[in-house]
């Protein structure tokens, strides 16, 4: 088959062979089927029979668990019949109890529409009489009451649910009979969004209990390192995790391709990506290439077409680019042409990894590590046809994570996924949802704090002091002037948002810290693949004015960080290294920005902005004198501390799902309060979102991987692959690789020693 001939070329041709860091063979697998006892209701069984569907073992386990009244989390791979995995148990419940209702929560409208189609198909065949419907911002006013009154399967999104809950009495009938709540794409609800959704779902559960129902949850998510923990934080109940995947799979080759095998790289990563993409097409493989931006998708598609015109006349329509912003009809047309095989190659932004419905292909190319293992496997999962071989190629970039994987393929393939973190105790988010809850039903502390945590009463008392809530014989009630649900914006910490405006058109919104970072005067802003210059940041009016401008440069903000510790929550001493986790006050001051073209700084501009101050959570460790002495011997100590801070922050996303802007750091040879050399890593969001806390508990693996990163990087004095950080507010100065190496090595020795003692 052609997959093997492509592999042969990659392994042997001198253009490629040095770049092949690793080839992993993922063996084929037979489908594993099971049957149910008692059997499914007749309507449902005959629907499956008519579609020639046999249930896989994991799908049967889902049905059984729901029958047992358990909450389940389905974490199975792409194309493993996940939708059916929850549709079958839901329909079984809806058929057996003609009053029962089910609520589906989807993060986007496009996904809601796909789901409605799936539900309607089952409904039409089985005659389940569910009147499945979408209820969201697009639902006409005239239809709403009928949907609330008659539909037994309602699909909505978190934003709509947030608006619906205050009107719960109109939903009394639906909530009273609510049997199952399906939360698909649950892994998307992490970080701040996770805190919000967790509390939104607590509000929903409280209302359900008021109406006398206690619905079960079905969560569906990509594979995670901590599925039980994640589900418990998101929902607040225990879950049965169904991980096994009974679907059949062909053999798959996963290639790690490193253009920087020699530490330099002779061509741009994009040229390299294009080369591999064309090689795939050349071998007759239908190939999908994921890129990090829309512009790159278009660029790689164009380069490839140009080259194909020369090498394969008549193939010029064989490659398309696929990105967000297409109308549904255009999208469908592309999808159909791919399925028919007319289109041989697709270049897509990785933002679309979930929305694409183009079936499975022979080859997938990942231009750079997509940021998370979770996305990596979802994208790579696009390759693989039943009964045939397939190949996935990941082209490494010159940054710490990509290079870490290129050098540690065993880690890459053996790693369980990242931890998805939800902190439902973030005091700001919690407080906002308590206001909403108190506006929905009087809040009775003894009855309701199990949903919202022990601190609820303290928060309510503080609200009483500023007239936002009142205590009545019925419980705490909301007594503010504005609508509580309007004050709480899902996905952000405060309702303070800045609008990015171009010629009177709002492009996007930003929170305050993002506005300072990316929306300051002179900043170059990327939006939908286009570049914009910020002409004004109006702090009073909460406006960021931009104009479209094609520029060759980009900008990076320069900031200074000041930090004070307000309380230590936990601490532990590993040998002579004290490690702490606690609450800190951070003050970030953006002082200016650099203008960078082609990798070199061509100018500096200063900025006058007030400092951003916030309370958050951090973990930090102090470095004992003996390690400092060793570092001093090897090089510059400050450069070593700074380098270790960068390496640790660079490795955080390997362990927990987070965005690079979610975490910040500070390293100092002499921390003002203690006089000790200290490295801090903090959550970049007011109140904290649980990342630093997880970093504290995963400190050992975090230090080990950071150490391996620095040790195994082939550079001599630090490079973007190891300790240089693209987000460093100090222009990556001072940095000292030798000193960093010593620090991490000694830290790792301390921790491994400690671990050994424990085991």
């Amino acid at each position, binding site marked *: 088959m052609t997959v093997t001939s492509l592999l042969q070329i990659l392994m042997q041709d001198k253009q490629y062979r040095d770049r092949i860091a690793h080839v992993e063979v993922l063996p084929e697998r037979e489908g594993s089927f099971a049957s149910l006892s008692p059997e499914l209701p007749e309507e449902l069984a005959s629907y499956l029979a008519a579609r020639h569907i046999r249930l896989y073992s994991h799908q049967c386990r889902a049905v059984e668990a729901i029958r047992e009244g358990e909450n389940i989390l389905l974490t199975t791979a792409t194309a493993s019949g996940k939708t059916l995995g929850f549709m079958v148990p839901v329909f079984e419940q809806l058929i057996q109890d003609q009053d029962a209702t089910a609520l589906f929560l989807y993060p986007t409208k496009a996904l809601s529409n796909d789901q409605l189609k799936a539900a309607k198909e089952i409904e039409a065949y089985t005659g389940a009489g569910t009147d499945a419907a979408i209820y969201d911002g697009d639902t006409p006013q005239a239809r709403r009451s009928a949907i609330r009154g008659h539909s037994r399967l309602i699909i909505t999104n978190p934003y709509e649910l947030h608006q619906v809950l205050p009107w719960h009495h109109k939903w009394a009938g639906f909530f009273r009979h609510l049997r199952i709540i399906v939360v698909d794409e649950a892994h998307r609800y992490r970080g701040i969004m996770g805190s919000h959704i967790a509390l939104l779902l607590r509000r929903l559960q409280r209302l359900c209990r008021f109406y006398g129902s206690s619905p079960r949850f079905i969560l569906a998510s990509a594979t995670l390192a901590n599925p039980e923990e994640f589900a418990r934080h998101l929902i607040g109940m225990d879950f049965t995790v169904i991980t096994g995947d009974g679907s059949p799979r062909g053999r798959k080759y996963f290639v790690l391709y490193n253009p920087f095998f020699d530490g330099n790289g002779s061509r741009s990563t994009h040229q390299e990506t294009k080369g591999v993409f064309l090689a795939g097409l050349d071998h007759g493989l239908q190939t999908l290439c994921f890129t990090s931006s829309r512009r790159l998708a278009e660029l790689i598609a164009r380069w490839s077409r140009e080259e194909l015109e020369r090498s394969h006349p008549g193939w010029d329509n064989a490659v398309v680019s696929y990105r967000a912003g297409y109308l549904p009809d255009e999208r469908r047309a592309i999808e159909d042409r791919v399925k028919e095989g007319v289109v041989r190659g697709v270049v897509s932004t990785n933002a679309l990894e979930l929305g694409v419905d183009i079936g499975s292909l022979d080859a997938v190319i990942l231009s750079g590590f997509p940021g998370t293992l979770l996305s990596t496997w979802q994208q790579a999962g696009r390759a693989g046809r039943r009964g045939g071989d397939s190949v996935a190629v990941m082209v490494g970039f010159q940054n710490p994570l990509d290079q870490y994987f290129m050098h540690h393929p065993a880690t890459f393939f053996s790693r369980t996924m990242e931890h998805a973190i939800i902190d439902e105790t973030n*005091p700001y988010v919690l*407080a*906002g949802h308590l206001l909403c809850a108190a506006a*929905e039903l009087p809040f009775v502390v003894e009855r309701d704090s199990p949903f919202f945590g022990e601190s609820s009463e303290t*928060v309510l008392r503080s609200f009483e002091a500023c007239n*936002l809530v009142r205590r009545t014989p019925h419980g705490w*009630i909301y007594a503010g002037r504005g*609508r509580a649900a309007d004050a709480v914006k899902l996905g952000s910490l405060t*309702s303070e948002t800045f609008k990015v405006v171009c010629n009177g058109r709002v492009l996007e919104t930003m929170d305050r810290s993002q506005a300072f970072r990316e929306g300051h005067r002179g900043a170059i802003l990327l939006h939908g693949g286009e570049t914009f210059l910020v002409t004004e940041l109006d702090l009073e009016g909460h406006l960021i004015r931009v104009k479209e401008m094609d520029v060759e440069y980009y900008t990076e903000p320069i900031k200074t960080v000041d930090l004070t510790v307000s*309380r230590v929550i936990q601490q532990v001493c590993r040998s002579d290294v004290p490690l702490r986790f606690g609450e800190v006050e951070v003050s970030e001051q953006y002082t200016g920005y650099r203008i960078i073209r082609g990798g070199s700084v061509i100018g500096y501009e200063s900025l006058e902005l007030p400092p951003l101050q916030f309370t958050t959570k951090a973990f930090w460790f102090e470095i004992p004198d003996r390690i400092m002495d060793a570092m001093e011997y090897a090089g510059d100590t400050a450069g070593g501390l700074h380098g270790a801070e960068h390496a640790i922050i660079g490795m955080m996303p390997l362990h927990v799902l987070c965005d690079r802007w979610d975490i910040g750091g500070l390293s100092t040879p002499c921390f003002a309060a203690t006089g000790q050399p200290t490295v801090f890593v903090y959550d970049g969001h007011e109140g904290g979102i649980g990342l630093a806390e997880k970093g504290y508990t995963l400190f050992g693996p975090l230090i080990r991987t950071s150490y391996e990163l620095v040790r195994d990087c082939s550079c001599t004095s630090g490079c973007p692959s190891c300790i240089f950080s693209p987000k460093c507010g100090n222009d990556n100065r001072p940095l000292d690789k030798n000193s960093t190496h010593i620090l991490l090595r000694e830290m790792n020795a301390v921790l491994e020693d400690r671990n050994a003692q424990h085991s």
Partner: protein
Amino acid sequence: MLPESPFCTAAQIAEQWKKNVAGLQEYQVIRDGSVFRAHLADSFLFHSEYQKALRLREELLERYKGKELDEVLPGEEVETSWGTTFALSTTLPCDPVKRVSIDGKELFSDLTMVRGIGAATARHLKGRGYQTVKDLLHHPRFRTGAAHLIERVQSGDPYAIQECIETRYPKSHPRVLEVSRFIEPSNFLFIDIETLGIFSRPIILLGIGRLIKGQTVIQQFLLRDPAEEPAAIAATLSALNEEGSAVVTFNGKSFDLPYIRDRAAFYGASVREKIPHFDLLHFSRRTFRGMYANYRLTTLERHLFGLERSGDVPSQLVPEFYEAYLTSGNPGPLIPIIEHNRQDVLSLIRLYHRLIGDVA
């Protein structure tokens, strides 16, 4: 290390949310005379009105500085099943009205009241000797419809009769209002409420007007603190849920009554479902179509009764006036709210008599 101080942090967070909530504006202040923008905004105030109201609030805070609420507002505490509420009562002589009683005869002479009969059929039927609905009891086709109507009307249940008429006539038709003649005047509740906003927030004042023995009695349940809302709701519910009561409001079908139902449900109580309700806004639109600038109650009372309010608080600013009272403890800003509400109830009563034509 600093000592643990959760209270301090919680207080800061509460202050932050206070700011977030205060930032939510449910009305817009627009330049005087900017009619175009007035059409765009859902709720707006002209700049001069806004300034005037702010001045009023300052004056009141100054005038009633250091005064206690019960010195300024002579009310009494009323015990309810849900705690104590503060009630203000006003008794005024009633405007002279001559009340026309009704026995259903007029309804029965209108054949179109029967399902399936339009104006043309009615004329045809009258030509053939069917003068009243009762005659139709012998008609082969309309027998059932006629019997249904007669049964409803003779039951004397105003809600059922209103339902019957509303299936045959527009809801703002005078015939719908005529149904109120089936109701004892002392059973009317003329209701108007003041709230902290548009839905899902406390009601701060509930005004109920009644016609008792030739007098107009207005009772207003004021929340001295939002914590007294359950008690005020309980007092209102006991009137609403009384057998035979009927409600008269201005825009109450969209606002006041659903709001009361919502707040009652919030505390786990409910308002009787089948309560006859006459929303005078709809009858006014029909009766006074095109005659005045708009159908606000203040506009109608100015034209119809020559009333001119002074020292009034615009409805949009009621929440802010109440908040000024809550934060300062100064009862001054409550005074125009109470006066505004009382005047609304009084005008509601006069408007009812005007619309139904019982003015002496």
